[in-house]
């Protein structure tokens, strides 16, 4: 997808020296990183740490999707924004921070309402996708787009003192719909505005998403395909659980998919968000 040069410059060798000496990365891995395009959907609590560590490691191209603007109440967890950037588009703010750290990386802001009309067009420009979004509707939409486009999806989420992480649609593992064929009832969905979140929790999960994306880009084995990492920050406990594989009956990644290119539904409606919570409908990225 994204073409990058076949050789490292002296400037790159010097900048990346501390990771080039790792045998698991080396020049070969660094060139792979430089050829990889990664999309981050959501420039919030998960997207900020994910973006900056992917920029730091030298990913070739990073795309950031977000339609919101920076607010003061974001700054307790969205650490790439600043007080001076309040009012600026979040995707622009993240792109600015990534460029400031590493001008070798191509950073692309996607300042759009991510929906079924544009999801596939955006996703197919990238090799690996990070779900750093903050609502159910976007999570279903992004899952379906990644399955249809054939991209692995590194999914993170966080609420209160807990975080979850897994890699969907990769090497026989399930997709989001394999695990959750039906959306949860609207009244059972809590977002960070309602339920709160300790900022460093998405910080840890977003950093772990970056790590998994780096391993995928370097063709290393993913640790969380068919596995779900649960993190409880109150007792500092990490638990990895074994997940089902891809489900043949899955409507999007199964043997006879009914959700296909051109048939992406209205995900806000699918998740029933409009029915009872107008605010939630509006927070779809």
């Amino acid at each position, binding site marked *: 997808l994204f073409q990058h040069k076949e050789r490292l410059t002296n400037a790159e060798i010097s900048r990346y020296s501390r990771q080039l000496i790792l045998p698991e990365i080396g020049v070969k891995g660094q060139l792979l990183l430089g050829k990889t395009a990664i999309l981050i959907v*959501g420039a*919030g*609590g*998960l*997207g900020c740490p994910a973006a900056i560590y992917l920029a730091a490691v030298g990913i070739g191209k990073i795309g950031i999707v977000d339609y919101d603007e920076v607010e003061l109440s974001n700054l307790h967890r969205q650490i790439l924004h600043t007080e001076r950037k309040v009012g600026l588009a979040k995707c622009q703010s993240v792109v600015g921070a990534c460029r400031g750290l590493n001008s070798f990386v191509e950073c692309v802001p996607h300042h759009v309402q991510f929906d079924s009309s544009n999801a596939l067009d955006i996703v197919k420009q990238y090799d690996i996708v990070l779900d*750093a*979004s*903050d*609502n*159910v509707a976007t*999570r279903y939409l992004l899952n379906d787009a990644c399955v249809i486009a054939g991209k692995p999806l590194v999914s*993170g*989420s*966080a*609420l*209160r003192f*807990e*975080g*979850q992480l897994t890699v969907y649609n990769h090497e026989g593992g399930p997709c989001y719909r394999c*695990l*959750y*064929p*039906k*959306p*949860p*009832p609207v*009244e*059972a*969905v*809590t*977002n*960070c505005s309602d*339920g709160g*979140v300790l900022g460093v929790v*998405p910080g840890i999960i*977003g950093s772990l998403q970056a790590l998994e994306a780096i391993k995928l880009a370097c063709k290393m084995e993913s640790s969380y395909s068919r596995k*779900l990492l*649960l993190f*409880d920050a109150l007792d500092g406990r990490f*638990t*990895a*659980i*074994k*997940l*089902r594989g891809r489900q043949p009956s899955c409507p999007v990644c199964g043997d006879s998919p009914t959700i296909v290119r051109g048939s992406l539904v209205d995900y806000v409606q699918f998740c029933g968000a409009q029915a009872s919570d107008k605010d939630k409908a509006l927070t779809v990225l």
Partner: protein
Amino acid sequence: MPLPICIEFGGGAELLFGKVKTHEVNLPDKEASWTIKDLLTWMKDNMLKERPELFIQGETVRPGILVLVNDADWELMGELAYNIQENDRIVFISTLHGG
């Protein structure tokens, strides 16, 4: 003989169960073996503090709750039909969507 097991909640599911994440319980003696289906009924009658529809819908857990048996997805274990063993850890995790 009663069947001792550990029931755990995470991702917010504990909010329906007195905000307690870990419950050591003894399932009462019964003729046939305990399945997860039986357990759900028992939990609804004996443990659920509020809003049962946010935990059980029909005869299974509501969409968005993942059930684990000893750190494995219940889909790998037979789901509702799984026969609960002594000292099993049955975990109910509500999926998180925030970020």
